[in-house]
């Protein structure tokens, strides 16, 4: 067996290598030239992400026997990673808004922030490319550990520390469950590789195995992933952490972590083991149903913006889960459309929030009061994002949901379709409540008019335009 890596193999790995090396470079810069790091790390981070994006788009692939058991080089990996890199890029831009505001705080340094963000991004990409439970686990942990630190990044906020501790402890528990579940699966079928799981399960069944270990393992894995995606009843950390963390970090969590966890779900339960058993599909349907009902009801009662987006994110994760549990051959394209739409809309919304958040502690609904009269464009972009999230036609959000529901209907989950549509009425209510506040003309007197930061404005504008584009031309393979 030839063990040396050729240039082709390195090119195939290049997105990962680029992100890692730039992350380390930023860390070095931070350690030895603090003033340079403060000024340049955002550019370095953005540049590295752009470079990695190009490398991903080139779709180099490798057939090296040391790599292929662990990492996939298929179209899905490209799609996922391109999406994750886009999310990372936007998070970097939004991070600048936050860091500019905190420029006087000694406790916060730009280099560290971007290092952690890039590390998290690396974990995300590894999830997207994983071909084995091992790489998936490493990806999830690499994604999570920097986030435990980032969650507590505004150190002066009290709730931040408590939330981060909760996140860390429960995240650790979830990781333990994940590994334990993987061990069970390995014990039952003798492999952890995604390519061979299905056949190994079939072989086990033929040999008369009853699958108790296998399914216990899957249940634990599902629970751990549901924790990362904040699906009810594994959602408890999300609202607190979202409330305590800085807005750009929340944006990364709401989109990056969420999509990462759902991508993991898709890779395990849709790519590796599609329709493996009715019990598994039923568990996912139950998770989705509980999440839809709970998250949508609780979201109607929220008054704090970041908490609100925690619940809204949960309900969207439930929709993504519905796409996955159908096990249909079209599920991946429906899921990718949903990912793109959700990422654009949520990022756009958080870009607007990032421009507002002068007081990071309590970013309440009142912060958007009268936004329309101050900045109509920002308000319209925000409304477009909210309408997309609410899934009201003609926004792409409707098409994405429509597609998912069609698959669910075809797979025989009519009750889930009806439930999703009924809870969508609640969703419309809470998104509109937020919008209504934005259009109030009698704005509260503010100490100062919000300084609209340029990067955030650009993100909001681009997200808005992209949403219009996707709504008009939703062509997908």
């Amino acid at each position: 067996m030839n063990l040396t890596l050729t240039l082709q193999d390195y090119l195939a790995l290049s997105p990962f290598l680029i992100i890692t090396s730039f992350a380390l470079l930023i860390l070095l810069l931070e350690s030895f030239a603090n003033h340079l790091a403060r000024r340049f790390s955002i550019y370095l981070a953005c540049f590295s992400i752009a470079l990695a994006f190009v490398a991903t788009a080139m779709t180099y692939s490798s057939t090296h026997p040391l790599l292929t058991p662990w990492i996939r080089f298929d179209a899905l990996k490209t799609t996922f990673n391109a999406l994750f890199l886009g999310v990372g890029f936007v998070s970097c831009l939004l991070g600048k808004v936050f860091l500019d505001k905190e420029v006087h705080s000694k406790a916060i340094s730009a280099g560290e922030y971007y290092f952690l963000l890039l590390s998290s991004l690396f974990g995300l990409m590894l999830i997207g490319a994983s071909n084995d439970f091992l790489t998936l686990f490493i990806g999830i942990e690499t994604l999570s550990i920097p986030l435990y630190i980032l969650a507590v990044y505004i150190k002066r906020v009290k709730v931040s520390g408590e939330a981060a501790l909760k996140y860390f402890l429960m995240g650790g528990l979830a990781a333990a469950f994940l590994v334990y579940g993987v061990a069970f699966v390995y014990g039952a079928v003798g492999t952890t590789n995604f390519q061979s799981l299905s056949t190994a399960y079939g072989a086990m069944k033929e040999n008369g195995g009853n699958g108790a270990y296998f399914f216990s393992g899957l249940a634990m894995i599902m629970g751990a992933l549901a924790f990362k995606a904040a699906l009810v009843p594994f959602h408890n950390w999300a609202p607190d952490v979202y409330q305590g963390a800085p807005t750009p970090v929340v944006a990364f969590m709401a989109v990056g972590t969420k999509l990462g966890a759902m991508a993991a779900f898709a890779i395990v339960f849709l790519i590796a083991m599609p329709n493996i058993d009715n019990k598994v599909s039923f568990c996912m349907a139950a998770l989705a149903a509980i999440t839809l009902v709970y998250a949508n009801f609780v979201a109607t009662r929220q008054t704090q913006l970041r908490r609100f987006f925690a619940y809204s994110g949960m309900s969207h994760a439930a929709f993504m889960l519905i796409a996955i549990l159908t096990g249909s051959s079209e599920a991946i394209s429906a899921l990718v459309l949903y990912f793109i739409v959700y990422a654009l809309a949520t990022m756009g919304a958080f870009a607007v929030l990032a421009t507002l958040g002068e007081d990071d502690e309590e970013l309440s609904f009142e912060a958007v009061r009268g936004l329309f009269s101050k900045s109509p464009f920002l308000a319209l972009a925000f409304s477009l994002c909210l309408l997309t999230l609410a899934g009201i036609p003609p926004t792409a959000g409707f098409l994405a949901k429509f597609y998912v529901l069609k698959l669910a209907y075809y797979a025989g989950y009519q009750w889930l379709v009806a439930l999703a549509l009924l809870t969508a009425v609640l969703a419309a209510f809470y998104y509109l409540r937020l919008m209504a506040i934005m259009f109030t003309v009698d704005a509260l007197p503010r100490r100062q008019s919000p300084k609209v930061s340029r990067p955030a404005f650009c993100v909001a504008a681009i997200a808005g335009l992209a949403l219009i584009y996707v709504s008009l031309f939703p062509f997908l393979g």
Partner: protein
Amino acid sequence: MFDPLLLLFFAPLIAAFFLFAMVKVSSKWTKAFAAICSMVPLFILILTPKLLGRSYDVLWFKPLSIHFNLSIDSLTLIFLYLTALITPIAIITGPIKNLSHPNIFYGFILFLQALLIGFFSTKDLALFTIFWEAMLIPLYFIINIWGGKNRQFAAMQFLLYMIAGSALLVFAVIALYFAASSFNFDELAKLSSTMPYAGWYFFIFLVAFAVKTPLFPFHGWLIDTYCEAPKTATILLAALLSKAGIYGVIRILMGIFPLYMQMASPYVVCLAVIGVLYGALAALAEIDMKRLIAYSSFSHVNFIFAALFVWNGYALAGGLFQVVTHSIVIAALFIIVGYLIDWLKTSDMQLTGGLARKIPAVCWLTLFFIMANVSLPGTANFVGELLVLFGVFQMSWWVAAILGLSVIVSATYALRFQRKVFFGQEGVATVSSGIIDVRLTYFAVIAPLVIATLWLGIYPRPLLELIEPVVKQIHLIDLLEH
């Protein structure tokens, strides 16, 4: 060559986006631009030869085989003419002064026009649903941003009613697609009756259309919305949006579920008749002008609903005729009431009176439309009402009797309105002496409506010729003997 059908839909849409970008333009020019752009569809409709039967179809969203389909048949054409006529009029009556962000206001109205045109002309059920729900967005914004004192509540209530009404619409649409493997109306029309649960899908569609029109027990949103919306939006709501529900009934319920439509007939007619009387009686007791007209509109759309559900060819023809005439008359009445409220600074009829001496021309114009509203012979509404009553009488004499009775009630509230506002003692609220009786814009807005009302009243044949194929397709009768 560019397809005129595409232009019909895209001209207002593109104009809307232009308007969104016109930030620094004065509100006067913005309004002029919007008014001109909104007339483009009317010109296309008039100038394009052989528009009837044209269609444009392209696969738009492949995984779900949703087609971007625009096609014109006579039913579509009736509603397109209405949209093309009413929207420019609504824009011209729109405000200039004290209007924040006029470009966005008029942009939304053009956006709404484009959506309405798309809605009335598509033959694809998925696209139909998209347009159906999308119409709510511009209206929500218009009511919420530019409405009256209680606008936020009204806008929210309006939207939630609508969304709740069509919550399960997507379910029914997917179910139909599951059965027919196509979203095309013609394909769907073939299967309906054999399909399992078709009755439920019929019911889901019926509720959605009934909320928007609105049919009797679903009218909770109506008064607040009509009264809080700015004048322009009220005109569009009463004249066009209510007709979207009626169009849906004809296109979907009659086209795809004719059997269930007949089964539901007694119940829906019963509700509609209650609605007619309820609206008329509420209008009789009302002291607020705008609310009075709103209740009157409610009463009349329920009349149309009854006409459609009675399941008779003449009633259907009359109903369709009333769709047109009701739009024209209710638009005119809301325009007049809107101006009156602007001048009087109140809409309370107890404070007004004796305006006939100050503004005689307005007085007689109002009387004209009030009379048209109660279907005086010679006005267009008479033709429609006569056809409806004729058709209803063939099916059930007592329904015809009640509907006939309602005409008396509506004459009573209409004349009461006229007396309270224009005759008698001069009220506390009166027009200031500076008001010019009939201004040029005012005349330009009202004149086409007067002409249309008289023309269709005296010579209804052109409209009946458009209506005939629709009736013939469903009821197999000849309306006009050739």
